[in-house]
């Protein structure tokens, strides 16, 4: 939505916005309260979500945590960070900003550590875990951002 508002300012230089351009913003405003509810649910459940994702991966994909000694701690720090970015991006409905300001850079880091497979598993598991904490409507708002994370971070170049 932030990107949409900024785009509106830039692209409507010298003219007023069209109905279609305004409709995108208005749609966001109408769904805002639903987004806030999901955002607050994610903030509240962050600890549980991370723990459940961690336990599922440890049980079903133990290879993710094989390797260096502090891999589990590093995984937790990274995953919390991505979850927070995801929550804010969902609240603002702003895939462009999260992609440009975070995911593009984080992708480089993950690739440097050859962590794409681990990311792919993490964000798949995160989706199934979140579905237990959110309503179906809430999930529909978050899912595109989880998919974006998985696509950007989980795929090989």
């Amino acid at each position, binding site marked *: 939505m*932030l990107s949409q*508002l*900024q785009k*509106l*300012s830039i692209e*409507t230089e*010298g*003219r*007023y*916005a069209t109905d279609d351009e*305004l409709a995108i*913003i*208005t749609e966001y*405003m109408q769904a*805002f309260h639903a987004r*806030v509810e999901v955002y607050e649910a994610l*903030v509240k459940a962050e600890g549980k979500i991370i723990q459940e994702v961690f336990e599922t991966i440890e049980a079903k994909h133990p290879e993710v945590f094989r390797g260096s000694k502090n891999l589990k701690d590093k995984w937790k720090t990274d995953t919390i*960070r991505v979850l*927070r*970015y995801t*929550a*804010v991006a969902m*609240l*603002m409905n702003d895939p462009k*900003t999260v992609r440009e*300001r*975070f995911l593009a850079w984080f992708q480089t880091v993950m690739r440097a550590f050859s962590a794409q497979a681990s990311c792919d598993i993490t964000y798949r598991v995160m989706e199934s875990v979140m579905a237990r904490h959110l309503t179906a409507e809430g999930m529909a708002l978050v899912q595109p951002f989880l998919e974006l994370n998985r696509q950007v971070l989980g795929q090989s170049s």
Partner: protein
Amino acid sequence: MNITLEQSIQNADGRYLTDSELDTLHVYIKTYEARLKTYTLLQEKSGEYILLALQKLAKTDAQTVQQHKDKCIRDMDYVVRSIAIAILRDDEEGFRQELLLWMQNIMVALHKEQQSSRAYRMLQEVVTQEMPKECSDLVNHYLDEFTKALLAGVA
């Protein structure tokens, strides 16, 4: 949403929003309907408002209006459009930046600050008469800023 909030959200860098940021966001969403209504009204009727303002101005500045009517309309249309997008986005800072640039480049060079400010005062009267109060309050706030800056010569 004001530009400060936009920037702080975009630079949040892996943290949740603060309570104050969330509150500002809520206020913006709450006032959005009035902002959109104002924007749409300006989009549809600003031409009419500007003509009414110039008719009022012609009572005191007939010659100026006669000589510079087209330019007045063009300039006022530009200012009103900038106000409309600033209201929609709640972006006073963006408006100030745009207004400063524009005035430094054009208005001051022409030395027509007094007549221009009278024209915008007339526009404020028209806006007050013609728009619902929630909309005219928003527009007149920006027109106040604009005329003040105009008369201060953008020091």
